């Protein structure tokens, strides 16, 4: 039970028509390493890593064209991955695309 100002008040009554919330799943069994589920079967997935990025710069879909520009730019940029809780979506030293 939490103490002090973070102690929760009564639960809010969900609005009519709201979907049932998903409560946190029950904790898994105590450590039982063989019990870790097998990784999923990996379906055939297109390999896009060898595509000519320069040609994608003119892709009709702007999302894809911007992605190609980002990948090309970042090949030469100094940057770090964003922290998970950073909501800016712009890595440090990233160039606008």
């Amino acid at each position: 039970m939490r103490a002090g100002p973070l102690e929760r008040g009564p639960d809010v009554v969900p609005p009519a028509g709201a979907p049932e919330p998903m409560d946190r799943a029950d904790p898994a069994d105590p450590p039982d390493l063989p019990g870790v589920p097998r990784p999923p079967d990996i379906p055939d997935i297109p390999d896009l890593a060898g595509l000519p990025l320069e040609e994608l710069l003119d892709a009709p879909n702007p999302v894809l064209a911007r992605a190609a520009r980002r990948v090309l730019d970042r090949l030469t940029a100094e940057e770090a991955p964003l922290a998970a809780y950073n909501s800016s979506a712009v890595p440090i030293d990233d160039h606008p695309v």
Partner: protein
Amino acid sequence: MTVPERSGPPLPFREFLVKVHSRCNLACRYCYVYESEDRGWRTQPVAMAPATAGRLVLRIAEHARRHALRSVRVILHGGEPLLADGESLARLVRGLRAALPAGTRAEVALQTNGTLLGETVLRLCHAEDIRIGVSLDGPPAVHDRYRRDPAGRGSHARVAAALELLARPEHRPLWSGLLTTVDPSTDPLATYDHLLSYDPPALTLILPLGNWTVPPPGRVPDPARTPYADWLAQVFDRWYGSTGRAPRITLFESVIDLLLGGASGSEVIGGGPSRLAVIDTDGSLTLSDHLKTTYDGADRTGLSVHRDPFDALLRHPGVAARQAGRAGLCADCRACPLVAVCGGGHYPHRYRAGSGGMGHDNPSVYCPDLARFIGHVARTVAADLPTTAKAVTKVTAEAGRIPDRRGAEHRG
């Protein structure tokens, strides 16, 4: 494509998450600070003292100077950072910029629940060049399910009012984006449309923190069930197919970039080295506070800005583990053909009590969702390629068949 193997000296920190206030005016049911395994918040000072803040900025400057950093990003965080008084925030930010070497630029942001965001705060952020990220999970029925105050009242109305203010042309340059925790029990498109209604410049979709010992909501052992992938795929399709203005979505952009052989823009996917340090209100240097969801004390190191430089934290095994790249992953992940894209997923999601690698020698608890979502994105992009770029092969379950990532290794 491969997740980079890292060896050699640790990479310096570039992001500094500063806990300027250790309490919150909300009591969100899923909060990883107050509602998870860790109890450290109980012993933290409520606010960062001026002496600690002063010592902190000198430590960041010292780190920037020692490693010749071109820029650092400082995120004002909590608890709720806007519970800290404005003058102390201003002093910290001014002190930081004054202490940094001339060649180092400081980006400063704060991540807020939005309930205290008003004109006074906006004036402060304009004056001190602080960008603002706001947490919003969706429409009222979704947001208020979890994000309530201690009396049980939902916070959506207050956040919505703050966003309307922030979206005004005079304030919009301050707005970095929205942070949304995915709830797979909700209607993904209704949620996305609601978020879009505020016209955010960026949207960060974050999977709930959980692991093999305490699984996230709805993440059942059956790998055939992928509620998070199913939710994300619908939003991705809407976003990818949008002909109008759409916000940047880090997770989606990162998956596409990784599939194209690039690097990730986020620590949650792709396996890039974490460059984040977290500083508690008492000046403790800690690992990612997301580790609070694993066990009590998981993020603590015994180091402090009052005694130790950030380089001491760089030498901590918990930092090395998050900079190890592919070498830090479990055998199943290293052998998986998708590892170049997922990178093993977000480090806290791999935890299982009692397993090796400080408990992280496992695939992500979201492995089935990540695999399905990555496949969905790859097929969507492949179907959309210009004719000239159509020579697409298939990734198969043969590890190592995928060509090397462009550029071989993350830089920086």
